[in-house]
């Protein structure tokens, strides 16, 4: 196990390096930050000066070399826009995103597993139909609809929660509620499908013959066998949350990494983009590693 983790960490490091190279060069294909940073009526002299100042006039390879050199000294460069170390900007935002992603995924996972399993237990039954319908509508409705409607209903009409922003626990309710919906729908469906197969297997019969009650049969015997695809999908959803929930951050004024990343990409604030990708990638790699370990924990037949 430990050697696996070590090997894996090394492999991830290589992909991280690949990622940096890829993002560095690809992002530089997308245009000149000067045009976006400076006002449209800026003079040519200002542009030249700007490029000089940020080293954008050097050959890309030189820029890359400099970036890597700095990176080795744990210097991610400064944000052009914000005139602060890019990594600070990113970590600030990522802390929020991480919290949001964690809380949401924990809730989603718990809820989706329960609902999906119960739906599978009586596949085709009333609860199954309702659960599927609701979760599917949730999963395929545009998220900004849900967000705006939620604000109109819960903040404006009912006044239960603030419309947006951060500060109190109440501020978290709407963003989490809205973020919850899509992964919930997806995971419910995956759990349901996987559980239907698991529940019709022979070992479930054994459990029934032992007199095990319905609940442990579903949640102990069948569920663990059904978990492989489920945790994969959970991982995928968590990864997209870690990459930032742009709509939610935009609408609810949530200072996460998603909007930061978009803004930085649109403004060609490369250092922030790179730092953000490095940080989220690290988180995602870590999560994937945990998931791969979880496979082995869940299913003893899988060995690395």
């Amino acid at each position, binding site marked *: 196990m430990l050697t696996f983790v070590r090997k894996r960490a090394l492999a991830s490091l290589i992909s991280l390096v690949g990622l940096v190279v890829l993002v560095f060069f690809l992002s530089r294909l997308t245009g000149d930050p000067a045009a976006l940073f400076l006002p449209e009526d800026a003079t040519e002299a200002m542009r030249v000066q700007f490029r000089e100042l940020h080293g954008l006039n050097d050959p890309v390879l030189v820029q890359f070399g400099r970036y890597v050199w700095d990176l080795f000294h744990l210097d991610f460069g400064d944000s052009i826009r914000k005139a602060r170390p890019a990594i600070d900007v990113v970590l600030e935002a990522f802390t929020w995103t991480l919290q949001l992603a964690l809380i949401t995924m924990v809730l989603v996972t718990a809820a989706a597993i329960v609902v999906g399993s119960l739906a599978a237990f009586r596949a085709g039954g009333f609860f199954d139909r309702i659960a599927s319908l609701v979760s599917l509508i949730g999963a395929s409705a545009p998220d900004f609809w849900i967000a705006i409607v939620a604000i109109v209903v819960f903040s404006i009409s009912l006044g239960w929660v603030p419309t947006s922003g951060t500060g109190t626990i109440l501020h978290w309710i709407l963003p989490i509620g809205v973020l919850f919906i899509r992964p919930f729908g997806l995971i419910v469906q995956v759990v349901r499908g996987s559980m239907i197969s698991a529940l019709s297997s022979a*070992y479930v019969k*054994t459990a029934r013959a032992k007199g095990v009650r319905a609940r442990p049969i579903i949640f102990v*015997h069948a569920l663990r066998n059904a978990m492989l695809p489920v945790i994969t999908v959970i991982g995928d959803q968590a990864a997209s949350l870690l990459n930032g929930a742009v709509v939610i951050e935009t609408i609810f004024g949530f200072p996460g990494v998603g909007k930061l990343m978009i803004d930085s990409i649109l403004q060609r604030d490369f250092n922030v983009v790179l730092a953000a990708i490095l940080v989220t990638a690290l988180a995602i790699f870590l999560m994937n590693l945990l998931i791969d370990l979880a496979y082995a924990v869940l299913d*003893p037949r899988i060995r690395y």
Partner: protein
Amino acid sequence: MAEHLLEVRNLSVEFHTAAGVVKAVKDISWYLDRGETLAILGESGSGKSVSASAVLDLIDMPPGRITSGEIRFDGKDLLKLSASQRRDINGRKIAMIFQDPLSHLNPVYPVGWQIVEALTTHGVDRLAAHAEALRLVTRVGIPEPENALKKYPHQFSGGQRQRLMIAMALAMKPDVIIADEPTTALDVTVQAEVLRLLDELQQETGMGVLIITHDLGVVAEIADRVVVMNAGEIVETGSTREVYKNPQHPYTRKLIGAAPGRGEMHPPLEAREPVLKVRDLQKYYSAFHALDGVSFDLMPGETLAVVGESGSGKSTLARILLRLDEPSGGQAFWKGRDLFTLSPAELFKLRRDLQMVFQDPTQSLNPRMTVYDLVSEAWVIHPEILPKKQWRSRVAELLVQVGLRPEHAVRYPHQFSGGQRQRIAIARALALEPQLIVCDEAVSALDVSVQAQVIDLLDKLRKEMGIAFIFIAHDLPVVRDFADHVMVMQKGKVVELGTVRQIFEAPKMPYTQALLAAGLDPDPDVQAERREARLKLARATG
């Protein structure tokens, strides 16, 4: 009329399939009293397992349906109880040992956990349950019990799994135990122990034992009464002795007549160039030494029976010869070429020649393929064997040869009984017309009449086409009838290797002798005598 402990009255069960309704059980009735052992004998696929499953509410309904009947336990009709009431009975009052132990153990939990759960479900506290599990596992003869509890099902041999299953069923000391082919995968010494365990428990608690088996020896050893089933119906019932000595129904007569172990033993083969030479085979599972220096030769048309202790590495040997597992050392030459160093392309060519019938038929059949697809897959892979036009008729032919019916071709594996699945697996192996078939307990789940038919078929193929067999079995009478050579294994080592005659008539090694001594005779009287003798011996020594 006094209430019986468990009574089935006029039970009928049918299944829905794409090809129409299958009447699996037709209007059967039987009963079981406290302290009694009832054996259900019968043709494979005659509805034995289905009727047992009905008692524990384990038939999926739909597609199954109980169309009529009552199942009375302790004065109540089980079919009228609520699901939760039946749950309380299951495991505590009535327990079941399943026919197919691998698929019936949950692959993702340690076996210890699964046994403990049988106890905690019915209110035993965790610590006590753990101690009890340990005791049970020890009693069914699993080596290193403390360690075994932490292992997962796939880490056990077929016979070991079956014993774990038995331990699980016995956990709550139920009033009734339904044992579906509980000893098919056990070598005779272990089988004897398990039967003795059942007997002891029966003495202790007065439980009723319903044992489903095709092994007349087992019946003779422990059953008080016998019910004989054929094609979903009960054709005969009576005390074990009566039925054996004086069978009424033609099917029963056929069954008893087909009991193996009485025919001529094969004469010694004349020496020929061996097709397979195995030299010093080794296999480690981490520190565990599963195969320890196995060497033997196999000639074309020869049947080498491998017998031995459960867990002695028989299946491992088979898996390694077929390159399903990598050996840790040693060589195997197939027609002079080392099997273990072949390239994938060469291996592919060889695949046609080497086939295997797996010990666990359910798991080895792809659940999404019909029998037709399963059997004809061989020709899809090796199209040179048979032109496509003839597939249908050849499938039908193979099915008939193994005792199934052509119309079974459109069904899926889950729609068959354990024995039927085993025959599908045999038909599939035969479809390739290989030169060597490794049969891992290939006929162990078949009733003696079908078994005889299949063995005859294999013997014919052996003679006519020179197919060689490695025949892993624990059923000594079958081995006696079918084998040319016998290899006895224990703890990963070959203990003794010789012709059938040598082994059966002049066994040299004590283990072989013990093995032969533990064999059961289908005649209840003979068995009763042996039992007496054994008891006397025990009293004298103990």
